[in-house]
């Protein structure tokens, strides 16, 4: 009997420990958000979001070009990474045991662990040094390299969740492999794929080193993809490490904008899945 009581007590203790850990994790996130919000909210207003930076000492000035630059480079990265990532995942799902699949999986796992600085250096060497200039295009490509492994690996997991019984239903109905992928597997996995993509986008939006080394930064509007471009993370990095109080304040504002955007993307992904599941 004593042992039974003991077991119960241990159970409660473990449960409490898990709860506490969960709360701590939540607390850390909430504190970061709260702090950024408190420090950043004063700087954020419409002109801040839409205007160009001003020289030191001159009042006003905003992050409009960095916002656009980030959006364009992340968009470009997504445009490149999503088709590659999903296609690779389809290959892995259809030929799970082939040697190429094994190698691809291994390469992607290694890539997820490669520091973003190295990815930046790689694109810098291959593209920026060759073409002789920093550019938004190079920034987008660097972000794509960062996104591809995340998208590929998460997409493969999601495709694999589509049960064999559904695939057989499709094949037994006389669908070809291609039709099964396009008409069954991809639609059935859309929710999961979207989550993986959102995660990759959020990851890319916050990357500093790859963008700094490839797109550098700029204090002007981006006019074409061959030009260097400003971006939120690099702007935050520059402003926060500057000695000027008004730049530091703007860095907090920019951080708030960046974090909010990522938060909105994540919530949107969750909502998308909820709505989709309800419809089903």
């Amino acid at each position: 009997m004593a042992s039974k009581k003991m077991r119960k007590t241990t159970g409660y203790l473990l449960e409490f420990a898990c709860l506490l850990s969960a709360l701590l994790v939540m607390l850390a996130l909430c504190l970061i958000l709260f702090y950024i919000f408190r420090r950043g909210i004063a700087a954020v207003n419409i002109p801040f979001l839409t205007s160009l930076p001003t020289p030191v000492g001159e009042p006003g000035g905003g992050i409009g070009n960095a916002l656009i630059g980030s959006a364009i480079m992340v968009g470009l990265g997504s445009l490149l990474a999503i088709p590659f990532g999903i296609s690779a995942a389809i290959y892995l799902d259809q030929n799970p045991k082939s040697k190429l699949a094994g190698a691809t999986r291994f390469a992607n796992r290694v890539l997820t662990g490669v520091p973003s600085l190295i990815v930046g250096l790689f694109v810098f060497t291959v593209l920026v040094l060759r073409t002789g200039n920093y550019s938004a295009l190079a920034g987008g490509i660097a972000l794509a390299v960062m996104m591809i492994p995340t998208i590929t690996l998460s997409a493969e997991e999601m495709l694999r969740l589509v049960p064999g019984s559904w695939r057989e239903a499709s094949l037994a109905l006389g669908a070809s492999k291609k039709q099964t992928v396009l008409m069954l597997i991809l639609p059935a996995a859309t929710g999961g794929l979207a989550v993986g993509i959102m995660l990759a986008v959020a990851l890319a939006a916050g990357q500093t080193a790859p963008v700094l080394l490839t797109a550098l930064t700029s204090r002007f509007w981006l006019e074409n993809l061959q030009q260097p471009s400003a971006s939120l993370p690099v702007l935050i990095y520059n402003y926060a490490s500057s000695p000027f109080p008004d730049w530091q304040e703007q860095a907090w504002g920019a951080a708030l904008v960046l974090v909010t955007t990522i938060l909105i993307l994540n919530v949107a992904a969750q909502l998308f899945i909820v709505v989709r599941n309800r419809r089903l």
Partner: protein
Amino acid sequence: MTQSIAVEDLSVWFGRHQVLKNVSLYAKPKEVTALIGPSGCGKTTLLRCINRLHDLYSNATIQGKIKLDTENILADNVDPVELRRRVGMIFQKPNPFPHLSIFENVAAGLRLHGLACGRAAADRVESCLRKAALWEEVKDNLDRPGIMLSGGQQQRLCIARALAIEPTVFLMDEPCASLDPVSTMRIEELIKELKEDYTVIIVTHNMQQAARISQQTAFVLNGELVEAGPTTEMFIAAKDDRTEAYLTGQMG
């Protein structure tokens, strides 16, 4: 238009393991042939060879012939994708497409093969749902997801889906295994009706079911076809001792 199924000297290996040994079986048009035998004896493998689902496993080796009427469907020049259109298959676990509505589930095959669209597709869907004895239950909810239906309804939905592309034969792999007795009765009624138009081969673990719905029974044991014959004869007096033992519950 239905076709006979003739399995001739069929052997199947998975890797080095032989799962079917020189099996020969003839399924007459407009009859139900029941495959019985203990789990793992090769019944399902035999069934799946008939629509070449085993082509999907790279370690499977197949020898022998399976003829739909006179055409050997194991021949190299037969396209398995095209073949599966002619062979309707119902699985053990109902597997309607999860992302499609009841209507779209039945129409899926039509769309795949470009058989019908618009008004014609709607008519075909209705007639298939009627044949599958599901129309009255779902006619007001055709746009609801197929997976919202009960297990028995889902299985009838799968039958409607298979009917839509007008196969010539029907394969059923324990279609009632996951269903309650009432749903099972409805599926059995349906199989009796399907028999009027199609050759049906059904795998079942339920001997009473085999006795109720089949005209021919084949007993498979350890990859061998022990005996095949008219169901009534086999259940009264099996020729082989092993069949007798299995049917009377002394084995399996």
